[in-house]
């Protein structure tokens, strides 16, 4: 049910409230979390950035969910990208060796093929995702939004008791 409230909140924010840049920023940062394995130092840093910057949390959570599915499907590709980055790019060997022997850096688990492959892919996708999302929010507010608000599913979500409860909790946080 939490995800229903997130989607509902997200749609509401698409329509009004935070700026398109905040929504797109939250979504793009969430995509990094979704594509990369969670229990890493860089994952914690991205979470911190999301919490510190005034980006949209619902967009970040939605992106995390959606991109986690993609991450599962694209795992072999991430493994390949990570392997090539860690093993076959000779110019980076010095950097990896330094990081490998530096304190704290191993907590990023950068020497794992999937961690590095997915993180590199997420960084590459970050700008396109941000730009695309920003354009989508603008388009939504201009025309698409009104059509979606007429869907029955949207009406159901909007009147849900869980959603009401979530909104109270969210407002308490400021």
């Amino acid at each position, binding site marked *: 049910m939490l995800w229903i409230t997130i989607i509902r909140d997200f749609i509401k924010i698409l329509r009004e409230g935070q700026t398109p840049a905040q929504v797109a920023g939250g979504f793009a940062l969430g995509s990094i979390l979704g594509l990369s394995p969670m229990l890493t130092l860089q994952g914690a840093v991205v979470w911190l950035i999301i919490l*510190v910057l005034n980006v949209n949390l619902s967009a970040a959570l939605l992106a995390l969910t959606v991109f986690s599915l993609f991450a599962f499907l694209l795992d072999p590709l991430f493994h390949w990208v990570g392997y090539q980055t860690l093993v076959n790019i000779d110019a980076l060997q010095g950097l*990896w060796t330094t990081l490998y022997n530096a304190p704290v850096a*191993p907590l990023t688990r950068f020497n794992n093929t999937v961690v590095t492959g997915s993180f590199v892919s997420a960084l590459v996708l970050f700008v396109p995702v941000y730009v695309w999302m920003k354009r989508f929010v603008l388009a939504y507010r201009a025309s698409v939004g009104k059509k979606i608000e007429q869907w029955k599913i949207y009406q159901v979500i909007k009147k849900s008791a869980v959603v009401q409860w979530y909104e109270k909790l969210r407002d308490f946080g400021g």
Partner: protein
Amino acid sequence: MRKRFVFFVLFPLLILAVVLYFFMDRWIEAGLESAGEQITGARVEIDNLSLSVSPLGITMSRMQVANPDDPWFNLFETKAITFAMDPGQLLRGKYIIEKMEVNDLIVGTRRGSNGSLPGAGARQRAGDKKGSFAALAEEVLARSVEKTPIFDPAILRKGINIDSLIKAVGLQSISHIETLKTRASLATAQWQATLADVQQTKQRLVLMDSSIRSINPAALKDVASVTTAIKTVDETRKGINDIVTTYTARRDAITADIHQISTAVAAIDDIAAEDYRKLLALARLPDINAMGIAEVLVGKQLLQDVKKYLSYADLAREKIHNYTTKPEMEKPPRMKGQDIHFPADRAYPKLWIKAVSLSGGTDQSQNPEFFYARGQVKNITSDQRITKIPLTVELTGSRGKSVSATLAALFDRTRNEPLDEYKAGIKGVPLASYALGRADFLPATITGATFGTAVAVKIPGRDFDARAELDFRNMAISYASAPANIGDRLAREVLNGVSGFDVDLRLWNSREGFKAALATDLDEQFAARLKGVLGAELTKVQSEIRAKANRFISEKRKEFEAVYNAKRAEIEKQLAEYQEIVTNATAIAEAKKKELEERLEKEKKGRIDDAVKKIFKR
């Protein structure tokens, strides 16, 4: 920036700190278990790990490490362990332990649960894998034991079909003769082509010879005609020399062919001798002088022991990994990825236990004859290329006052080629019962003996060299049945005269494959007794085999030599004829030139005399 930063950031951080405080122990425990499982390939379980912050140290109440080859048993388990960790390296995600005291270590305890790792499936034991040292040694020892010689003269007389043996061996000398036939046939065809060329030059040579012979120096009346004749002879000589050079090259080629084929023909005798040896081996006829009873006496039991202990060497070779600079791309489970490790000077591996002081032994609950050992294991690490120090084990043990044992091992993975070395010794082991011989030969049991052994094994790369000395003392032998044949009886006579014996075993890997040699100090006695009984009979059978094989080879050799020698004689005859012509032509040209030069001198002198006479007349 968010308005309520404290709520969004500091509060979660506080919660994180609390979570860390409560769960850090479990995370380190899981990390150590995971690192240990990577090394052993089986479940590593640590109970009640607790972390102390200052100084940074760990205490655990129990650790058990499952045997990857037998996951319902532990390789070992320990009671309480305390050790200090390097805090700087822990921040780098590395477990560096300076010294660990492990007391009350118990080897081979039964587990309450399966110790194999999830997803490992049915695991093939390291020693059972194709190409493992245990598998190779088992194969070669089994072959050696199976090849036990026949001792019974009756079997010698009845049981050998020489024709079948010759077919089975596939005599190399016959193949060699067939190859020679083909080679000789090709060579003679080549010789014929060469001779055809030589015949053409022969005509030229005859013409040159005639033209030189036709010059009559006496008929030449002036200096000019003599000079012209000398010039003609010189040119003819040059032509003859050209022909001689070409002929010599061809003759040398033919002579080299003849020499090579003759050498190959001479080798038939050596190959036939080797064939004969193979026939004897296939007939399982014993070479009495070099014959031992080691294989039949202790081979079967030793086979089991060697397989068991070499499987530990295979396990060590498999589990103590070599570091590779460019790891192969693996196919890890989804979302797991592959860890790539980077070497660096002064870096630390994921796990490095610099020294472990051990004391403990076998499981007293399973075996009342408890074996106690103590010693040190140094430099247990997940990557020796980083530590640059091999793993070493030094243990001494005892059981009661009579049995003592030592074990020293070295596992070097610091270079590209792995090196394993083991030195082990045990003395005074009482043998309640030890099986000797086989069901069909010398079925016996040693009772009440004491046993000792010294083993040295060196395994550099895929090479292998193991030597073991086993000694049996104070033994009493009981036989399961009456002697089956004369060999059995003689072996019993030898054994009844001694109270102990020594066995030397060597297993090694050579270019020809894995090899085993097994001998006892009873072999000479046994051979002497056997020689007296079997010598005459054996010599007779050996002679029969040799005669038949020789007859067979001689027939084929005669066939070849009849054809080849005829062709060789023919070519040699033709070459000799041609050589004669060449020699004559050369000699005649030389003589004619000399004659002409003398004539020229004479003519010149005559002219000078005439000129002087004319001057004086004036």
